[in-house]
């Protein structure tokens, strides 16, 4: 007996941004499926430019756009077992209310569609489209909020992909990805990762109400959420704050290039580690080693000890930065003549991933 195809019905219906998340939740309740939500920032405050966009073997076609929600078809081809195959799938993109440069892409298709087509397509749009990153501390805060606001008895981690940062004595190795299924609770898992100077690339957890599993959710460092239930709750707790962070970062990172300013003045940014991060001068070397892992960039050391002064050139778009460590707490990033939003984000992302996370601030000139 053929069962009712809820997904096909969902696709037939023309959705709008106000009701979309709730309708996805209803679909997940009816159909054994999962949704992926991918928040991203975009230089363009519109969606129509995506229509007809071709990236390699992937082509996007706009199906409809209604009230800041657009539905697209994505045609793609790939080789499997030596055979060329063509597939198609759908995705949605929602422009965030009051955040015109922030969007969320949604996919109800298979993991294969996400990995082979949608994610590579979105990544290929860099630097127009920029994914984000969720700091370790923020990830923990959001998970705590999810548990409290959803009144769940526990969140049990069923799978975690973590990365440990550069360690002394391990100079030639890049941070090591590790996959494990620790079945820990949140506090234990975050304590473990902090002790090992790492971060979670992704966390899969089960939201529990006493002994009953209500849903399985995955949250990644890029702020991507996959859920097989509880999507409205996950959207409010994970995606909405991530969108606000994207918007705040777009504003914080924009117009930093000296060539954009009539007087060519510099507008630095600060990463405050909120601890005596550089008390040990060996830390300077660790920072320099970590910076040298930045791909597609030149990292020149103008001074390494006792203070740090680096010149960084990003070959992706010619953005350049001076990096300074002049006290124990802060790393100051001085954008030079070219400094795109994407390059600033990439640089900070790299520092957080490969060296240490800190609080991002606008630079205030210190007083004597």
């Amino acid at each position, binding site marked *: 007996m053929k069962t009712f195809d809820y997904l096909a019905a969902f696709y037939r219906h023309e959705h709008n941004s106000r009701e979309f998340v709730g309708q996805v939740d209803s679909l997940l309740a009816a159909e054994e499926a999962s949704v992926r939500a991918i928040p991203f920032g975009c230089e363009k405050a519109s969606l129509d430019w995506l229509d007809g966009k071709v990236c390699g073997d992937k082509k996007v076609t706009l199906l409809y756009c209604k009230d800041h929600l657009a539905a697209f078809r994505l045609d793609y081809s790939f080789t499997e077992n030596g055979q060329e195959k063509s597939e198609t799938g759908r995705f949605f993109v929602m422009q965030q209310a009051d955040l015109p440069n922030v969007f969320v892409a949604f996919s109800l298709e298979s993991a294969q569609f996400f990995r082979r087509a949608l994610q590579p397509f979105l990544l290929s749009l860099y630097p127009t489209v920029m994914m984000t990153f969720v700091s370790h501390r923020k990830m923990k805060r959001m998970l705590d909020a999810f548990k409290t606001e959803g009144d769940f008895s526990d969140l049990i981690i069923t799978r975690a992909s973590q990365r440990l940062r550069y360690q002394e004595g391990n100079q030639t190795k890049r941070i090591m990805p590790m996959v494990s299924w620790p079945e820990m609770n949140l506090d234990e898992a975050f304590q473990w990762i902090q002790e090992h100077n790492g971060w979670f690339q992704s966390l899969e957890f089960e939201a529990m109400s006493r002994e009953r599993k209500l849903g399985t959710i995955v949250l990644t460092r890029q702020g991507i959420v996959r859920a097989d239930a509880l999507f409205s709750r996950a959207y409010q707790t994970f995606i909405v704050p991530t969108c606000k962070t994207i918007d705040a970062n777009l504003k914080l990172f924009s117009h930093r290039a*000296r*060539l954009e300013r009539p*007087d*060519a*003045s*510099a507008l*630095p940014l600060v990463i405050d580690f909120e601890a005596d991060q550089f*008390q040990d001068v060996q830390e300077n070397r660790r920072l320099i080693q970590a910076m*040298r892992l930045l791909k*597609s*960039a*030149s*990292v*020149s*050391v*103008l*001074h390494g000890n*006792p*203070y740090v*002064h680096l*010149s960084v*050139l990003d*070959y*992706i*778009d*010619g953005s*350049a930065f*001076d990096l*300074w460590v*002049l*006290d*124990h707490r802060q790393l*100051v990033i*001085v954008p*030079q*003549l*070219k400094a795109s939003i994407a390059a600033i984000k990439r640089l900070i992302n790299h520092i957080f991933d490969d060296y240490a996370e800190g609080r991002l601030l606008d*630079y205030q*000139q*210190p*007083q*004597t």
Partner: protein
Amino acid sequence: MNQEQAFKDEIDNYNDSLFAIIGFMNFYRYDDTTRSMRSDVLVFQGRTLTPSEAKSKNEAGETVHFVTPDLGILLPDGKGILGEVKRSFPLDTARWLDDFKQLMGYDDDLTGWPNDSQKVTAHDIVLLLHQSRAIKVKNYFTENSPKDIHFTRPFSIVEFNRSSQGKEYFFFRNVSGNVSDQNLASRLEEGINVPMGIYLIQYSTVKLYDSTPPLPYLLELIWTHVVAVKVTSIPGYKIPAKKQKVKIELALDEISERLEKNFSFHGLQQGHANARQPRVLKDTALQQACAALVKFGDAEWTDTTKTKLSVNFVKREDVLDYFIKCCTKEPGNNGQMDLFNTKDKGIS
């Protein structure tokens, strides 16, 4: 000392000199009350000032067209300060008198100050010296003054050094004479620690002064801030593959203008730059840098007069290190610093 380290030290010395100039200028510019820079204090670097008739000839009878102090400050009361910075002093003390003679050239009723009259009613002369040499140079000055070294205007020697105390500081202390500003003079007697973080923006935007920069340092500036900016601005630019060369045409004037506008004291001069404020990057230094690019295989001349280049832009993981290594391989380069014979003092 190996040659690579010698270049690194030379770059360090050059930057320390820059930091010293910026720090000392800001003693006068920075207003402690409002905690901001005063707009009525004008600063200049490498400005050409014309000697009086009395000092228009040197000891050899040659005409002195102008002097170019490392730092100049014009105060709102019509007084000023001229200074010279020396991260190190020659090992050969016989050459020290030449450096003092250069300073004595500033002890004159000079014309060309950045005000309407182009004159000041009075000015101080300051020698900024790295701490390692300050006492020896002060003793030399005392031993030879007033017989060979004499100043009619207030002359002082101020030592500087970097210091680490949790934060990085630039330390200044008076070792001989003193400045006319009584408040500053008393602070300099005790020594002033300037947190380097305060002037971080200036350190990042002022990378050149009118002393010839170390060649690898200048090449890194050209590569990162001129060549890369131009290459990546080509419509449709895509990051080059490994070892792929992207060709770009560059005129020497274009390099000079870009660096002058964005990495000299240009930004600190409040609109008083004029013909007396020549470009800090001398033509010879720029030509040498471009010739080095050609020699290293990173560029080719595109005209017979050597005013234009075709640069082969490639990805390098450490631009400065690459140029240090290239310069080290140059035959005849012994890595020695020659910081004192590089300024054109206008002697004809």
